[in-house]
């Protein structure tokens, strides 16, 4: 037995395959084909959770994706614990473990329900009024520490696991001629027509089983087949024709240019997940044409206490009955403004459910549904309404009154354990709206319907406002054929259709009860009542977007699928406007929640962001290097010897380099080879310097500006020949500089014959710096005269080192005699090893980026991005001499004459000398006095600050207004412990004459 409320036959469940599961620790049995919702209803369980704010008992409202109440947590293990799942969409499997949310200690006895009594304090705007909250004592707030956490904990959804997600997620890009979203009657017909016309077709549906409403139509036939058989035949033909069929796949986002995102659930329905199987797959589909067949969702009616367990949408009850073979109650009262509910009442009556009353809110309903109900002897009240319900954990009665004359006492209580409601149907226009299609308001039926599509797209069936099986099938077929470019669709022979049904109501039903004492829910998931919306309007909110945020209506995980139209209508009524005047709130992606895992896909852990390692990385690691992240690069930071911390290691590395020599892995330097007959002219235009007269074999420090005249990059450029330059850039700047060069080459100077090639990864670079540098490299180099006369500072030679090709630069970023050995990356490790052995034998060191920074700061060499901030000119850095203003043009030249760039008072690079041993904070502000009043204008900031092992004092570089003119003045760096005095000095702390470079 799979539940005492299970019918003996009927529906699409397999009673021969019982499935055991637990809910809140209780064991139940359902069967194959059930959702968790249908299985619980088969066991008579209606109370499945507590509401978000008031902790009111809640049951199932719907049977599908729009369910607002019945959220649960499904746990396979601690890490595989998924909260906030809609029980109406959780497929049952053997051993499923689910639990309710937001109730403590139990969903039947919940202490948080005290919030319901406190509800006068928790109405619209509660969050804004409370959490901005009373401040009792200056500095501390009892409220924030004590009450707010309690309230926040009491309001909420499920709890996510703290463990990392152990599953993995797949991603697929797909292209097709026709994408059909929604596998109901309209979608199936569309896909079939498209596939028959030879179009590459993808059909997706959120359900485990395609067919949509056809799965709940046991009495209908299509083309002479029972509806379910037609579904099976259609799916078989689609598969045969090569269409991609994606059940359990939610089309959740519709983006530009017919780019549609689908989330496919792959394993959540399986009792045993195969090892290594991806859990979900993100499909990113680019479709030539899209057919939306997303259906419609029934609206609740808004009346007092319309949220008790057992109060359900009429169409949902029919789905439970006819698709799952479950009686959702024994005695039903139906309140409706739409004809379709009569069909539900008749089906329930046939299954043995007593129909206590059908209350039609319309004064003069008519049609075959009403006639059939009367013919079947079902009691019908016309022009009635429901003004309240009784019961606590399950509805026990409905207060039925006349719609006109709604006195509080003028009602009759009709006993029932199932209260079905239908406010009509809201077309699911979410994806259409996301596609930027314009919605139009159909005044006659009071619905927003798709207007002109903005992309190559068509909406068919119920989401387009159509009603009935034949209409859905024929529209779908026509749209599918048109999308495939093959003319007309076909029409279908249908019996058991309900084409004439209609009706609907928006907003709250009238009642005469004390509005302070009753709650008529609009948004069930966020506990928003009709009163809250009216209160928001009374408090002055006019925009529907503001009303939404103030009341939180439509802002829960269901995004108001069942509530938005009712809340709009209530707001419109309170504002005295029509619906179109009030406007619609935005339909946002995703249509239903999508896991982070699906979006992340493989981009996590090691694959989240590429890690770049130099060819010397492993050798440096073996030498004990600590690494730091520089962009995507791992760079050797320092090489500690036993017992050394960063400070001690850096001090030793600097002293050893200046006394003997050090080697440094500079492979991350950006490198661009600039080649062509116009290469020198191109560099003339891209750098401030003059390049024409630079002889082959010589280097120059190049300064690159952006067009507004600010320093954007720098680096040494070596000329290898008349038409060939080896350009280096900063480590982080290489892609930006190449993009900048390409931009000007392609678009401003296309007449220049120049080719640009990134060679960053092709050339590894080992800097050898220090007085003994020549002694280290000399024995390893062939074909290059290393003497100071033949190979002076700022020269470049090609030859061989350790038997492999090298571009050898004589340059220095330490102020010492220096070489930068460029070798093809594959040889770098061997060359590093050879150089390291020579260096170590002479008493030198390997040094890392920290020592490099200290040594360059001791020399006052700037780092672009540290001494510059995008508003720094060459003159600000004291590098005005690098700017060849005699050149007719270069990028940034015109801007150097801009008024702001030549105005007095610009910040200039200076050094700061500090008494004592305190190293300044980089970024610290600089003021002219020690204790400036609050609001004092800072005259500059510290850009670099280090302990200088060479000087034996702290040193700093800073940008200070009129800094060069302040040389000798004392300035102050205010810090929490008091201002630190500093004397403005030149930026070069070591060997200002530069004699050591020429050793």
């Amino acid at each position, binding site marked *: 037995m799979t539940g005492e409320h299970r019918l003996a036959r009927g529906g699409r469940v397999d009673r021969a395959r019982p499935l055991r599961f637990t809910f809140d620790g209780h064991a139940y049995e359902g069967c194959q084909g059930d959702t968790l919702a249908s299985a619980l209803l088969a066991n008579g369980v209606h109370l499945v959770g507590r509401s978000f704010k008031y902790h009111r008992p809640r049951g199932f409202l719907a049977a599908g994706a729009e369910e607002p109440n019945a959220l649960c947590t499904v746990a396979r293990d601690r890490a595989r614990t998924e909260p906030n799942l809609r029980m109406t969409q959780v497929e049952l499997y053997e051993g499923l473990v689910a639990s309710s949310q937001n109730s403590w200690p139990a969903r039947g006895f919940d202490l948080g329900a005290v919030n319901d009594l406190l509800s006068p304090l928790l109405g619209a705007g509660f969050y804004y009024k409370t959490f901005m909250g009373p401040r009792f004592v200056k500095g501390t707030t009892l409220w924030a520490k004590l009450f707010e956490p309690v309230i926040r904990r009491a309001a909420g959804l499920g709890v996510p696991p703290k463990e990392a997600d152990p599953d993995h997620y797949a991603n697929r*890009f797909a292209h097709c001629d026709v994408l059909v979203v929604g596998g109901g009657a309209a979608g199936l017909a569309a896909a079939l027509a498209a596939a028959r016309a030879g179009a590459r077709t993808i059909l997706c549906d959120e359900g485990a089983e395609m067919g949509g409403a056809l799965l709940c139509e046991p009495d209908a036939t299509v083309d002479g087949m029972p509806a379910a058989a037609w579904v099976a035949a259609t799916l078989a033909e689609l598969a045969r024709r090569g269409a991609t069929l994606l059940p359990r796949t939610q089309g959740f986002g519709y*983006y*530009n*240019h*017919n*780019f549609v995102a689908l989330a496919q659930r792959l394993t959540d329905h399986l009792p045993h997940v195969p090892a290594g199987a991806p859990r979900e797959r993100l499909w*990113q589909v*680019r479709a030539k044409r899209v057919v939306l067949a997303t259906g419609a969702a029934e609206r609740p009616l808004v009346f007092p206490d319309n949220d008790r367990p057992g109060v359900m949408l009429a169409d949902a009850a029919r789905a439970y009955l006819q698709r799952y073979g479950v009686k959702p109650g024994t005695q039903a009262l139906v309140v409706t403004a739409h004809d379709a509910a009569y069909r539900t009442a008749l089906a329930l009556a046939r299954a043995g459910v007593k129909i206590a009353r059908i209350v039609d809110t319309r004064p003069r309903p008519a049609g075959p549904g009403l006639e059939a109900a009367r013919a079947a002897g079902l009691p019908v009240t016309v022009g009635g309404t429901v003004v309240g319900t009784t019961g606590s954990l399950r509805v026990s009665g409905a207060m039925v009154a006349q719609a006109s004359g709604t006195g509080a006492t003028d009602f009759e209580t009709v006993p029932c354990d199932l209260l079905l409601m239908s406010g009509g149907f809201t077309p699911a226009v979410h994806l259409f*709206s996301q596609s*930027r*299609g*314009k*919605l*139009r308001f159909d005044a006659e039926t009071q619905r927003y319907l798709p*207007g002109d599509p*903005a992309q190559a797209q068509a909406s068919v069936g119920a989401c387009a406002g159509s009603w009935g099986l034949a209409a859905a099938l024929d529209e779908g077929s026509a749209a599918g054929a048109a999308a495939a470019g093959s003319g007309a669709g076909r029409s279908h022979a249908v019996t058991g259709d309900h084409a004439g049904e209609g009706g609907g109501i928006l907003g709250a039903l009238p009642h005469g009860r004390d509005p302070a004492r009753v709650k008529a829910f609009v948004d069930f998931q966020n506990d928003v009542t009709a009163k809250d919306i009216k209160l928001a309007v009374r408090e002055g909110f*006019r*925009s*529907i*977007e*503001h*009303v*939404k945020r103030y009341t939180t209506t439509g802002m829960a995980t269901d995004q108001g699928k069942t509530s938005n139209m009712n809340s709009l209508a209530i707001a419109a009524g309170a504002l005295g*406007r029509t619906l*179109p*005047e*009030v*406007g*619609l*709130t*935005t*339909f946002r992606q995703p249509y239903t929640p999508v896991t982070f895992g699906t979006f992340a896909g493989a981009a996590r852990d090691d694959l989240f962001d590429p890690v770049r390692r130099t060819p010397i990385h492993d050798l440096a690691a073996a030498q004990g290097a600590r690494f730091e992240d520089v962009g995507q690069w791992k760079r050797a930071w320092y090489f500690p010897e036993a017992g050394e911390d960063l400070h001690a290691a850096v001090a030793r590395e600097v002293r050893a380099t200046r006394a003997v020599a050090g080697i440094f892995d500079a492979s991350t330097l950006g490198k661009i080879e600039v080649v062509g007959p116009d290469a020198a002219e191109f560099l003339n235009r891209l750098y401030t310097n003059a390049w024409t007269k630079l002889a082959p074999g010589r280097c120059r420090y190049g300064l690159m500006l952006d*067009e*507004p005249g600010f320093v954007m990059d720098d680096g040494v450029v070596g000329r290898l020949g008349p038409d060939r330059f080896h350009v280096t850039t900063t480590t982080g700047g290489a892609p930006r500089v190449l*993009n900048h060069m*390409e*931009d000007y080459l*392609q*678009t*401003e100077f*296309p007449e220049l014959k120049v080719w640009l090639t990134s060679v960053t990864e092709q050339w590894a670079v080992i800097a050898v710096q220090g007085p003994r540098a020549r002694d280290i490299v000399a024995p390893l180099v062939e074909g290059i005269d290393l003497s100071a006369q033949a190979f002076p500072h700022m020269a470049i030679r090609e030859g061989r080192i350790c038997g492999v090709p090298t571009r050898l630069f004589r340059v220095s970023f330490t102020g010492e005699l220096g070489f930068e050995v460029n070798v093809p990356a594959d040889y770098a490790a061997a060359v590093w090893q050879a150089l390291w052995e020579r260096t170590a034998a002479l008493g030198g060191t390997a040094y890392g980026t920290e020592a490099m920074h200290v040594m360059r700061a001791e020399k006052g060499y700037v780092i672009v991005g540290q001494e510059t901030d995008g508003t720094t000119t060459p003159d600000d850095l004291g590098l005005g001499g690098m700017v060849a203003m005699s050149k007719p*043009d270069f990028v940034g*030249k*015109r*801007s150097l*004459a*801009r*008024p702001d760039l030549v105005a007095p008072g610009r910040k200039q690079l200076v050094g700061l000398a500090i008494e004592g041993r305190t190293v300044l904070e980089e970024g610290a502000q600089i003021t002219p006095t020690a204790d400036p009043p609050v609001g004092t204008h800072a005259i500059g900031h510290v850009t670099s600050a280090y302990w200088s092992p060479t000087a034996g004092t702290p040193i700093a570089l800073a940008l200070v207004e009129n800094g060069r003119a302040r040389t000798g003045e004392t300035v102050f760096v205010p810090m929490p412990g008091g201002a630190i005095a500093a004397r403005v000095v030149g930026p070069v702390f070591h060997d200002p004459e530069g004699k050591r470079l020429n050793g």
Partner: protein
Amino acid sequence: MLLIPCPFCGPRPELEFRNAGHAHVTRNPAVDDPAWAETLFFRDNPKGIMAERWRHVSGCGRFFNVLRDTVSDAILASYKAGEPRPDVPLPGPEGEAPRIGAGDEVAP
């Protein structure tokens, strides 16, 4: 995600491109300071057709120009850098606004 027609490679997903700002900004260093400031810093923000530059950075590497309707994101033309801006018809009139997310445009 846009589908961008590279004039050299054909239609490719936006992932392969990098936007490079407005097209047809003339670089003329001979102009006076206010005009040069316009060149550097002032851009219009059209509702409708906009000429913009893209680089097929993960493809052929070329910069080119695109005419895009900023209302619909429809791409109306793509053409090589240096070519004149083609004439394309203006997008249709706004018509009755959908008012989606337009609640704050409601008159008080």
